[in-house]
């Protein structure tokens, strides 16, 4: 289970959809492309010019030698070309080093011709050559063709320097990418932490002094944090004040009713007032519990589930003396009953659920709590044999102030299960309700051994 979670974690972090990788790859590819292009242009310019120069030098050189030989040996027209070809071949050793050219005298008499007839006029270069007797000749060559440039660039790519450049650009891209992503990640983590613990300190100043858009974002988040803190503070104060202010007149109302009762002991209206006062007081208490659960940041502490269940059953024994209750669990694993959580919230949850079970049971119908332990969680099942709930209504039971259709007239406000669910969710646990065919209601609470501190 644990390794699985870690693996998905790693997968999401390595995912190429992550901003880090996107920025990294974009910068890296861009920097490599820029370097390759620069390299290409530089190599191209350099090799092209030097190659051209060398080619022209070679060609002129060859032409001069041919002319020199032509003048000295005074070949006949027919022999000249083949003789010179032979001679050049001998000197150069290989035929493909013979440069295609056409040499002619100024009055268009061909002195030498080698494979230039295939080359179109516009690709030819014309040079003037002077023989040893200072006679003028015209030599035509093919325009120099620079060798395929990418081959040269590629040959440089394989060099150590290039590997170094490659790594350096990767490093720089990674650093750049990290410098953008890190504050974003930090702000994300901060928001998550803040959502659960409003006492968290504001965003640290080194993020605010960056001077870029991210520090603007950090400043905005700080602003939001202060606004939220104000709002939460105001809401908590309001709830606290309202509950206190509501309770003061309630206490006076009860006292007045009690005084009337002293004078008219059998007055049924006074009894009604007392009951309603009690009801209002309970409602105020439940609303307070509900809002406290939602807002108060708390630190998880050890809670003994068995002790909590016993505490709840003790209270039930006083409140519902006619309902027999049982608590079963594996005695040999009792030490597993201690989980890290929020005891008050859990007590409220269990109290509401077991209280419901007792409330909706008739005298003599048993209510059973069964606690099972596993390595990572504790499962509490509360089962009663009471009137149960329609399947269609089970989902709605968790909504605040919702009351099942068959229960509109029983005492209560419809907040109990909402509070229980909130408390269980605070532990990152689950609450499932079922109405089994044989009747009653079965509530199953699964609590992880460690309540998430960030939730």
């Amino acid at each position: 289970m644990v390794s699985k979670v870690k693996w998905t974690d790693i997968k999401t972090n390595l995912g190429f959809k992550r901003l880090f990788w996107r920025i990294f790859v974009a910068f890296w590819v861009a920097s490599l492309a820029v370097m390759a292009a620069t390299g290409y242009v530089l190599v191209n310019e350099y090799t092209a010019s030097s190659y051209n120069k060398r080619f022209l030098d070679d060609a002129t050189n060859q032409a001069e030698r041919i002319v020199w030989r032509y003048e000295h040996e005074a070949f006949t027209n027919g022999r000249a070309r083949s003789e010179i070809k032979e001679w050049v071949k001998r000197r150069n050793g290989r035929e493909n080093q013979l440069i295609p050219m056409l040499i002619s005298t100024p009055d268009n008499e061909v002195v030498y011709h080698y494979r230039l007839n295939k080359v179109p006029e516009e690709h030819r270069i014309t040079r003037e050559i002077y023989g040893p007797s200072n006679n003028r000749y015209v030599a035509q060559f093919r325009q120099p063709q620079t060798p395929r440039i990418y081959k040269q660039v590629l040959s440089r790519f394989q060099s150590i320097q290039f590997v170094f450049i490659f790594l350096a650009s990767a490093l720089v891209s990674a650093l750049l990418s990290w410098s953008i992503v890190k504050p974003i990640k930090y702000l994300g983590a901060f928001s998550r932490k803040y959502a659960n613990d409003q006492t968290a300190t504001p965003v640290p100043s080194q993020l605010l002094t960056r001077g870029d858009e991210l520090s603007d974002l950090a400043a905005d988040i700080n602003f939001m944090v202060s606004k939220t803190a104000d709002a939460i503070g105001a809401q908590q104060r309001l709830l606290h004040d309202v509950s206190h202010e509501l309770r003061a007149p309630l206490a006076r109302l009860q006292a007045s009713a009690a005084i009337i009762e002293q004078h008219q002991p059998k007055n049924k209206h006074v009894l009604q007032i007392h009951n309603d006062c009690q009801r209002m007081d309970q409602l105020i208490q439940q609303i307070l519990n509900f809002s406290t659960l939602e807002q108060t940041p708390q630190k998880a502490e050890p809670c003994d589930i068995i002790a909590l269940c016993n505490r709840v059953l003790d209270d039930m024994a006083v409140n519902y003396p006619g309902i027999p209750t049982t608590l079963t669990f594996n005695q040999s694993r009792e030490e597993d009953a201690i989980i890290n959580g929020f005891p008050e919230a859990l007590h409220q949850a269990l109290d509401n659920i077991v209280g419901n079970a007792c409330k909706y049971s008739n005298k003599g119908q048993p209510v059973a709590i069964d606690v099972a332990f596993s390595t990572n969680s504790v499962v509490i099942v509360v089962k009663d044999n009471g009137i149960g709930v329609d399947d269609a209504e089970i989902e709605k039971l968790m909504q605040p102030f919702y009351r099942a259709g068959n229960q509109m007239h029983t005492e209560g406000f419809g907040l109990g299960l909402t509070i229980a669910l909130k408390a269980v969710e605070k532990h990152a646990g689950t609450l499932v309700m079922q109405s089994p065919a044989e009747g009653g209601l079965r509530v199953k609470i699964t609590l992880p051994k460690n309540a998430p501190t960030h939730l």
Partner: protein
Amino acid sequence: MKNEKINVLLVDDDKDLCALLQEFLEGDGFSVDAIHSGDEAIKTLLNTEKYDTVVLDIMMPGISGLDVLKSVRAEKQTPILMLTGRGDDIDRIVGLELGADDYLPKPCNPRELGARIRAIIRRTQYLKATPSASLSELHGIYLDLGARQATVNGKSLALTGAEFNALSYLMERVGQTISKQEMTQEVLKRPLEAYDRAMDVHVSRIRQKLAAAGVKNVIKSVRGVGYQMLTAPQQSE
């Protein structure tokens, strides 16, 4: 006793409520005075022995009920009943730890308040009537029931009234498991209620104080039932 009315001091900042409670309690046979601020309450309580019991509201502006409790307990053992906000478990426990004799959630039915005051008075009077020569001894703990003095191995042990009663009740019934209902009824002189932690707090305070004095693991909690004073200290694991 019959002709003498029980003197109650009400301390609450809500003047209207005080007036109503005063009227009710007087109709119920008590003699009631009311004070509306913490510092006034401290002054009055430290200067007079007139009151048999004090009903003290925790939530008061300025000097709170807990502050009053602390200052009064430092010098006097006048029985004090705290009025706490319902659900403020912390306030209740702190109140009991600071030596309050009992608590009642507010708002409450004044009839219940009257019953609680009577329970506290019954308890103190029952204690006064106990023969003075009686002495109880166990595990090195000596209780002088007459002088209401507790000593552990010669050193005196500071217990509040309710703690002293609970300890002596358990010591007199060593080896028996006493239910929370019975303890509450016999020690606090009132029935156990749902969500009633008074007895648990008293017993846990006794345990802490005994442990600090060197006597450990003599009171056992019997889950779902109550408490038991062991005949021999339980070996800690």
